């Protein structure tokens, strides 16, 4: 840090050499003074942070962490954004996504009921609509069914006649 080179150049007249020597002493003092003061400054205890400031800084940290956690959570409930989340990949993940898209398990129950009703209407049409089974040329009668079978469509068609 201290540059002590070329302070006393050779071959100079005596007066200049004295002046140079005096300036060298001044420089040496200045270096010593500054090095001492800097060393004392470094040895000083670290700045003491007041409790109110420390608490305020930590409160800000907690608030920012909470806001970030809330943002991440809200992203997680939106299934279209949850592709990278755990459990959202693979067949089960896609299935969960489809179920969620149509309204969850209650909607799936309604879909099952509607499907059963459609099947019933298809197999047991009202009397004014031609029977698709008969149109296909299939003679469906009790004799065609095994004795122990229970055909819901047959029972219902008999009741409607």
């Amino acid at each position, binding site marked *: 840090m201290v540059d002590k080179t070329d302070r006393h150049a050779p071959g100079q007249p005596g007066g200049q050499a004295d002046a140079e020597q005096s300036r060298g002493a001044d420089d040496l003092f200045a270096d010593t*003074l500054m090095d001492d*003061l800097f060393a004392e400054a470094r040895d000083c205890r670290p700045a003491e942070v007041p409790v109110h400031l420390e608490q305020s800084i930590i409160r800000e*940290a907690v608030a920012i962490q909470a806001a970030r956690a809330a943002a991440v959570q809200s992203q997680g409930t939106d299934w279209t954004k949850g592709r990278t989340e755990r459990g959202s990949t693979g067949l089960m993940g896609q299935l969960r996504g489809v179920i969620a898209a149509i309204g969850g398990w209650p909607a799936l129950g309604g879909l099952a009921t509607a499907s059963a009703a459609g099947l019933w209407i298809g197999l047991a049409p009202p009397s004014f609509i031609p029977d698709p089974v008969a149109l296909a040329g299939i003679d469906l009668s009790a004799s065609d069914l095994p004795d122990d079978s229970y055909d819901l469509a047959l029972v219902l068609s008999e009741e409607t006649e």
Partner: protein
Amino acid sequence: MSQPPPTQAGQGQACDERPVEDPEGALLLRFAQGDPHVAAELTRRLAPRALGVAMRVLGNRAEAEDITQEAMVRLWRQAEHWEPGRARVSTWLYRVVMNLCIDHKRRQRGGHLDLDAIPEPEDTAQSAAERLQDGARQDALQSALMQLPERQRQAVVLRHIEDLPNPEIAGIMDISVEAVESLTARGKRALAAILAGRRAELGYSDG
């Protein structure tokens, strides 16, 4: 406003790509992942450094506390974007503190108050003997520091009081290492010149 992380070598220098050791960086990553216990630890480690350097640069404790709080809040906000190994958290924080100090001074000058132009008030109530105490010597140093131009003061504080290496200071101040060397050398000479007339007060005998 997010502060880009400083490089270790400063602007225009060849970057050393080796990751830097940084225990505070590991803590900051845990903070970003939601660990609720590390904020206090990071505050305990970093806030005193921020406050200390801000006090040296601003010469005012209340203003330095405001700067410290703002710098720490910026640290929390940018935690999720932290790139481990690129720079030390402390380096980043020093940089934010220094920039906030400069902004603060600029705002004050905008209000027609140039603190650099105002010499520190002399305390004539104390005797020379009382001034020999370390506290008085540090007051004299602080008073002299406040007479330096802003960037010289920052460089001197970072180099000689915070004891940081020149490449790190270059990263903090966004200048070359050569510019850091020039600023610190000129700043040290200027301080010595300011304090030269106060040898007796500082406990040195003439001659």
